[in-house]
C-alpha cells in the first residue's frame, strides 16, 4: 500500500519542540508511530523532550539523525527563518503548521525553496497523515483509517469532518493533506492532485476548497487534462459576504472573483461533483468508484477482446 509525501521511512525533526504546541504534538506524532528523530530549539541542545533528543540547530540535528522532513511549530515572527534553516540543512519536505506568517515573506521563501528543490506544505495548515504509517502535523490520528482515498484540503477542522465522514462510511485514506488557508502556500491543489494521480494505492480523491483566489478553478482544469482518477469536491463559503476575511487570510472574496459559486461551477463543468454537506462526500465517492469500476470492466473486456482478435490473427498467420 502506497501513500504520498510521508510513510514509514519519513524521519522527522520538530522545530520548536520545547514550545507548548511543539512538545505536545511531538509526543502525539510519536505515539501515532511517526519516526520523530529529534527536535530543535536554539539554546536547548542536549536536553530531551518526551524522550526525543533536542538540538541547537537544524544543521546539527540533520547531521546527527539523517532526517529528511521537518515540522515547524515556532511563533509566526520566526517561522520563515525556521523554513530557511531547514532548507539549508538539507531537509526535503518542510511542513509549516504556524499560523500568521506574513504573506510577503512567503513570496521570497517560495522562490528560494523552488530553486533548491525543497517541498513546503503550509503555512497555516494541519499537516499530513498517511494512516497507520506516519503523521506530520496536528491531525487527530484516531479519525483516519487506511484505505484508497486521497484527501487534499485548504482547511483544518473541515478536513477532519470530511475524513471522519469517509472513515465512518468505510472509506479509508492513502494520505490526507491540509495545504493551508493562507494566500501564499508552498504546495497547492495541483501539486497534490498530480501526486495522487501517480500514487498506485489512491483510487479517488476528495478536494476541499474554499472561497478566495482561483486555485480550485486551476485544479479543475488540471483534473480535466491530466487526471484519470475520479475527484469529488467540497467548497466552503457559499454564503460569505464579499470583502470580508473569513478567518483564513486566503478566504476573502474581493472584486467579484473567488466566490464559491464560480468554483462549484468550474468543478461541475469538468465532471467533479460538489457535495453540499461534508457528510455527502462518501456517497459521491462511492458513486464515482462504481462508475470507474464499470468503465474499467468494460475496458478490460475490450482489451481481452482485442487480444483475442490479435491472437486469432497471429494464429491465422501461423496457419499460413
Amino acid at each position: 500500500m502506497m501513500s504520498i509525501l510521508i510513510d514509514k521511512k519519513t524521519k522527522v525533526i520538530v522545530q520548536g519542540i520545547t514550545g507548548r504546541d511543539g512538545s505536545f504534538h511531538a509526543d502525539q506524532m510519536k505515539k501515532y508511530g511517526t519516526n520523530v528523530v529529534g527536535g530543535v530549539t536554539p539554546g536547548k541542545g542536549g536536553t530531551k523532550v518526551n524522550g526525543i533528543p533536542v538540538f541547537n540547530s537544524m544543521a546539527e540535528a540533520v547531521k546527527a539523525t539523517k532526517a529528511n522532513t521537518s515540522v515547524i511549530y515556532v511563533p509566526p515572527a520566526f517561522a520563515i527563518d525556521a523554513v530557511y534553516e531547514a532548507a539549508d540543512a538539507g531537509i526535503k519536505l518542510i511542513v509549516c503548521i504556524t499560523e500568521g506568517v506574513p504573506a510577503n515573506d512567503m513570496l521570497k521563501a517560495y522562490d528560494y525553496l523552488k530553486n533548491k528543490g525543497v517541498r513546503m506544505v503550509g503555512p497555516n495548515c494541519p499537516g499530513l497523515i498517511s494512516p497507520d504509517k506516519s503523521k506530520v502535523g496536528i491531525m487527530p490520528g484516531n479519525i483516519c483509517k487506511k484505505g484508497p482515498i486521497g484527501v487534499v484540503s485548504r482547511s483544518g477542522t473541515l478536513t477532519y469532518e470530511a475524513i471522519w465522514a469517509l472513515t465512518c462510511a468505510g472509506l479509508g485514506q492513502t494520505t490526507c493533506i491540509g495545504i493551508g488557508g493562507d494566500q501564499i502556500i508552498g504546495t497547492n491543489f495541483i501539486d497534490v492532485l498530480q501526486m495522487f494521480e501517480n500514487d498506485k494505492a489512491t483510487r479517488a480523491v476528495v478536494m476541499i476548497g474554499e472561497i478566495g483566489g482561483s486555485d480550485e478553478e486551476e485544479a479543475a482544469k488540471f483534473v480535466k487534462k491530466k487526471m484519470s482518477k475520479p475527484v469529488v469536491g467540497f467548497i466552503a463559503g457559499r454564503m460569505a459576504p464579499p470583502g470580508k476575511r473569513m478567518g483564513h487570510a486566503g478566504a476573502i472574496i474581493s472584486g467579484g472573483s473567488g466566490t464559491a459559486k464560480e468554483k462549484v461551477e468550474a468543478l461541475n463543468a469538468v465532471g467533479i461533483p460538489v457535495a453540499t454537506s461534508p457528510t455527502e462526500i462518501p456517497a459521491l465517492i462511492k458513486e464515482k468508484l462504481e462508475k470507474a469500476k464499470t468503465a474499467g470492466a468494460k475496458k478490460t473486456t475490450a482489451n481481452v477482446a482485442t487480444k483475442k482478435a490479435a491472437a486469432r490473427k497471429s494464429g491465422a498467420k501461423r496457419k499460413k
Partner: protein
Amino acid sequence: MKIHEYQAKEIFAAAGIPVPQGKVATTPAEAVEIAEEMGRPVMVKAQVHVGGRGKAGGIQYAENLEAVRVWSQKILGMDLKGLKVNHVLITEAADILTECYVGIIIDRASKAPVIMVSPAGGIDIEEVAAKTPEKIFKLAVDPTIGLKAYQARDLATKLYKDIKLVRQAADILMKLYDIYWKIDASLVEINPLITTPDGKVIALDAKINIDDNGLFRQKAIEAMRDLEAEDPAEVEARDGDLSFVKLSGNIGCIVNGAGLAMATMDLVKHYGGDPANFLDIGGSSNPQKVLTAMRIILRDQNVRSILINIFGGITRCDDVANGIVMAYEELKPEVPIVVRLTGTNEDKARKILKSTDLKFGDTLDDVVKKAIKLADAEITV
C-alpha cells in the same frame, strides 16, 4: 487591515510621492479652518473604508469656505454604505488633465507582487478589467530581486508619451514598490494618478491595505487603526483572539476552524436558516474564548438560537464544554442553544454539560437542522 486615504497619503508623502496638500478634520469648523489656511477651492472627502465614495456622495468640490462648511456638515456623520463618516480630508482641488491607475497587489497565482497600470483611471479598476481588459497592463515582479528601473519605465510608457511624465511616473512606481514591502502591504493603489496642465504627475487618491500577519512588526501602521471605523463586535472579537464577522441572520454560530465555520454557515443557509455571524474560536481554545464568543453573539438582538459546532482535534471538547458552562452561569442566555461536540475528549464534555438544559446534535447536519427549528424557522430542504 485597512487605513484611511489621509493616512496612506502621509505614507506616500514621506516616501516622496507627490500628493495634493491636505489635512483631516473631524468637525465642520475644523474643515473651514483648514480650507481657509489653504486659501483656494478644496475637495471635501469622506474617510471611510469603502470603495466608490464619490458615487455615494462622499466626495464633494467646495468653491468657497461656505461650501466647505455645508459639505463637511453634510458628510461628517453621514452613512456611507453602512459605515459612519467620522473624518473628512480637506485637500486642494487639482486641475486634472489625465487620469490613470497604478496599483500593486499580492498575487497568489504568480506568487509575486503584481504591478497593474492602466491609462483608464478614475473609475473602478474591476470595471476596467471587465469592460476593457486590453487597457490594463500587468507585471509580476521577482520578489527576490525587486522592481528594476527599466521595468518601471516600461510600465510608465503605457500611461504617457511625454518622457518627462514617464520619468515622474516611473519614479512613483519605484517608490510605491518600496512602500509595498516596507509596510507589509497586500495592496497599494493610486486611483487616479493624475497629470496637471503644468506637467506634474500627482497621486490624487491613495489606498493601502496591510497584511494582518505583518502587523506584529508594523507598530506605526497598527497605531493608525481607526477603531471607530470598524464594527465594535469585530474589534472585541479580535481582542479576544477570535475571528468574527457579523451577518444579518438570526442563528448565532460558534465553530472551531475557519473552513468548518464557513461550511456550517453554508449548511444553515442550505437548510433554510439564516446565520447571524461567522465565528471561529480557533485552534487550542481555552474556556475564556467560548465565553467571549457567547457574549458577542448574545448582544445581537436578532439572534433566536445558538449553534455550537466543535470538531475536536487540538481543540479539546471538555475545554469548550467548560466555557459553555461558564458562559451559561455568567450570561444566563435566554435563547436556546444546541451543541455538537465531536472528537478529542467528547465523553468528558458530555459529562460536564449534563447539568445544563442544552440540546445536543449528533452530526453536522443534525445540529444545523435543530438550530433552525429552535430559531422557529422552517427547514426547506
